[in-house]
């Protein structure tokens, strides 16, 4: 049972890395907290459901479609709200409130359009039955989702460290002011990062029905807390630290569910508070952010 | 020089940020009625020194004593009541409060004894006409003056002044220098960090020159500018 829980935790953690990755990218580049991240994820899930039920599109190509569409949608959204936000005195706090409002709007519109029935995708699309990994029996869709998550993380790594835009993005993450001074088009870099973030949320959403069991329009808020816990445990502003956060979260969640199942939901909350207070720079970083 | 025993004594003060030693064994002393200039290139630790003395950061080594008691690590608001106060390099007024309210807070909370007359205080720094305006509407020079007024409202015996002169026009500079001298004449001890050497020359009795976190010269400014080491540091340093 112990090995099973740990292996399942790593697999689950990889998926939650994907859930938190986009949120962290936006925080790193723009210093804003996108509280609507979970709602974009939810939209990704509904997009996959719609693509399957209306056109019979398999979740895998659906993920590619969602990635592109969400990335493109992110660009205008960025220019609409973010530059204006960043001129404000306390942009971190204001962004939190603004994106919370956006989250409410998205949830409302989704409810109006698709209703509140739980939607899920047939698990057989990603393979039926268990897969044996290191002696642990895991649902095939989990392994599949974790693999896609790993690919996405790798993609973000390659973007940040192997492309020119990625280098500029990292420069903005280190110091926005200095990047501005050296003539980097901050808004272009940020808008693209914002688009990528939404795209990542979208892919995570496509696999949400498999990992979470089902989706409803109101899963956004809970996912936001979890995603925030993951990136705080990893390192705020360091997208690759998210991997650490995701796996720590996944493994501890699975251990809790195995041995203290009724207390499992307490976990992300306690983890978040504990890490914020004890090691505010995250388990994998060195940024300080105390008052 | 002042015949009285020193109010403030700084010995071998150390402050580290991660691996960087911002203060690396600074020592100096300050007597009542004395104005001490703290000069040195950017990054030499002047502001950090003020931050540690005023209680913003606890020291990592060495000793700060005030009236014979160690005050290293004592919180800012306690020091303010005991008579140590400061201004900030970039002014930090309470933007949404009025000028008078800014000073009122300090007079109420930063005084161990009787608070000074606020109207007179504001008049003395030429902020009386702006008393009911929100601090956010003041220009940068006025905000710096407000910083000073707020510090004075706590009736300090030691005043740490961090680059008050920058941005003032020549007439304002002159008045500010006179003001600081008048404070010293009243028995207050002042530590002045400043880049403008003319201003330093006008207000200070002696200077301490810092580089890389510790002091290496102490004496009058006139002597300092003849010191080969000082010349080397300033010409070779980042300040230029």
């Amino acid at each position: 049972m112990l090995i099973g829980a740990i292996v399942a935790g790593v697999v689950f953690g990889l998926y939650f890395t994907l859930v938190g990755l986009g949120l962290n990218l936006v925080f790193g580049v723009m210093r804003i907290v996108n509280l609507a991240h979970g709602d974009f994820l939810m939209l990704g899930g509904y997009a996959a459901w719609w693509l399957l039920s209306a056109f019979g599109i398999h979740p895998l190509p659906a993920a590619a479609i969602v990635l592109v569409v969400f990335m493109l949608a992110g660009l205008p959204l960025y220019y609409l709200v973010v530059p204006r936000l960043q001129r404000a005195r306390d942009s971190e706090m204001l962004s939190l409130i603004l994106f919370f409002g956006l989250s409410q709007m998205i949830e409302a519109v989704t409810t109006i359009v698709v209703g509140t029935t739980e939607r899920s995708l047939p698990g057989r699309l990603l393979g039926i039955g268990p897969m044996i990994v290191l002696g642990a029996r895991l649902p095939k869709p989990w392994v599949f989702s974790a693999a896609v998550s790993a690919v996405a993380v790798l993609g973000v790594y390659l973007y940040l460290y192997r492309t020119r835009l990625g280098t500029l993005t990292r420069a903005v993450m280190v110091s926005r002011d200095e990047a501005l001074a050296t003539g980097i088009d901050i808004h272009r870099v940020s808008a693209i990062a914002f688009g990528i973030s939404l795209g990542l949320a979208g892919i995570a959403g496509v696999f949400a029905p498999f990992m979470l069991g089902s989706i409803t329009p109101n899963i956004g808020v809970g996912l936001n807390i979890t995603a925030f816990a993951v990136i705080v445990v990893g390192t705020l502003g360091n997208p690759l630290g998210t991997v650490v956060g995701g796996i720590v979260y996944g493994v501890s969640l699975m251990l809790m569910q195995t041995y203290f199942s009724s207390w499992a939901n307490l976990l992300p909350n306690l983890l978040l508070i504990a890490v914020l207070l004890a090691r505010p720079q995250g388990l994998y970083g060195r940024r300080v952010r105390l008052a | 020089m002042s015949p009285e025993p020193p109010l403030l004594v700084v010995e071998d003060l150390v402050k580290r940020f991660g691996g960087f030693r911002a203060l690396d064994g600074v020592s100096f002393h300050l007597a009542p009625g004395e104005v001490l200039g703290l000069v040195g290139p950017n990054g030499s630790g002047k502001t950090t020194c003020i931050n540690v003395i005023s209680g913003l950061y606890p020291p990592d080594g060495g000793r700060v004593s005030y009236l014979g008691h160690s005050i290293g690590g004592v919180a800012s608001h306690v020091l303010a009541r005991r008579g140590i106060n400061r201004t900030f390099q970039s002014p930090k007024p309470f933007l949404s409060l009025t000028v008078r309210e800014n000073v009122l807070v300090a007079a109420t909370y930063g005084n161990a004894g009787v608070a000074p007359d606020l109207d007179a205080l504001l008049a003395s720094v030429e902020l009386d006409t702006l008393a009911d305006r929100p601090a956010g509407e003041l220009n940068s020079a006025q905000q710096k003056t407000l910083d000073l007024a707020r510090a004075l409202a706590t009736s300090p015996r030691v005043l740490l002044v961090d680059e008050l002169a920058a941005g003032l026009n020549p007439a304002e500079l002159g008045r500010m220098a006179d003001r600081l001298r008048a404070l010293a004449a009243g028995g207050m001890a002042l530590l002045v960090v400043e880049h403008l050497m003319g201003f330093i020359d006008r207000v200070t009795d002696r200077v301490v020159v810092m580089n890389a976190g510790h002091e290496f010269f102490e004496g009058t400014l006139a002597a300092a500018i003849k010191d080969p080491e000082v010349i080397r540091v300033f010409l070779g340093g980042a300040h230029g």
Partner: protein
Amino acid sequence: MNIRGALAGLVLAASTVFGARAAPAPAEIKVGTLYASTGPFAAISMPAYDGIKLWVKQANAAGGVYVKPYHKKIPLKLIAYDDQSNTATAATLYNQLITQDHVEILISDSGSVLTSVAVPIAREHKQLLFDLSGTGAPFFSKDNPYIVLMSLPISTLWPKAQADFLNDVGWRAGVRKVAILYATNDFTGTHAKSLAGYLRKAGKETIVYDQGVPTNTTNYSVLINNIAAAKPDAVIELGYPGNDIAFLRALQDSGEKFRYVFTLFGGFEMHAVLGGAGASAMVGTFTYIPAALYPYKVNYGPTVEQFHAAWDKAYPPGSGVAWGADGLMGYMSGLVIERALATTPGMSQLDLRRAVFALSGKLDTLAGAFRLNPVGAQIGEMTPMGQLRADGPHAVRPVAVYPPALAMGKPEFGPRSGQ
């Protein structure tokens, strides 16, 4: 005739005369209810609300319902608010229905949670609460006459059918160890507890796993691993449709096999669960079967075929309104209320209560036998045990298997593990 009888007759006559004068027949009978368009209870609330709407629509198409005190047919007016599965909102809205809309008939939202807040409010305002499906035992007490449970047996009684089945047929088939996994809400929590109580009382099967999880649980994979570690023969999962869907999917994905798997809504909201979990995850599982899913002889209201036709006409397949037990219960509660209005001695809330109680033991509707105990709890409408069989590759059909009197087929248990 003695004096008391004479007095009673006088009072009755007076109340009829003056009552009629004081209150001429209203233009409409106001029926107030709540529904949850969102949240955890939407899955059971919306179909029930659709059922009530269907009843009101049909009644009004026939010129209204006959109301005895006025000797005429009066149209119904349905006033419904959305409580979004939130009990605080629901409390305010129940108050609104009673104090501002002055509804004659107050029907609670589906489920025990959204009913619970209505109980003290209805009692405070002396308004009879037609409790749709809030089966929580604490609602019913001798000192509160203002509640009557319309459908579903009270949750302390309901699980007896399953316990009997396991003790009888299950025991003979070799079921020895039972696991119970339930969602911790009034409905399934109480259900799980009394089921465990019945099993312990019988003293045959042992309960090797008994665990509650939050109702919003969507991920059952680890829980199923934990259950498998306890090596039970029978696994009983009690939750709302969302829980059942997630459980059945996770069970299929895990590859674990148990001899007996039970879900409550697999039968009660068969179509909704089918849409979420798929037929292959459901085939062979056990469930309760509502009367509408097996040939049940009714003496009041439509037959299965008639009801199905009416439902499909009002909510054509594909309209997103799933047909299941909750819709039926909403509709049938309406029919019982209609009959009560047709027989009530007066229009006071306690008169209505008397009228409903007078129907106890007399009605056999598609929801089952309508029987009330003295405090207003439903003790009829028992549901038989059923098993889901494949009906083509993408559908399942329920087969009643217990009690023998209602059985249409033999239960099929899974193979013994390790054999």
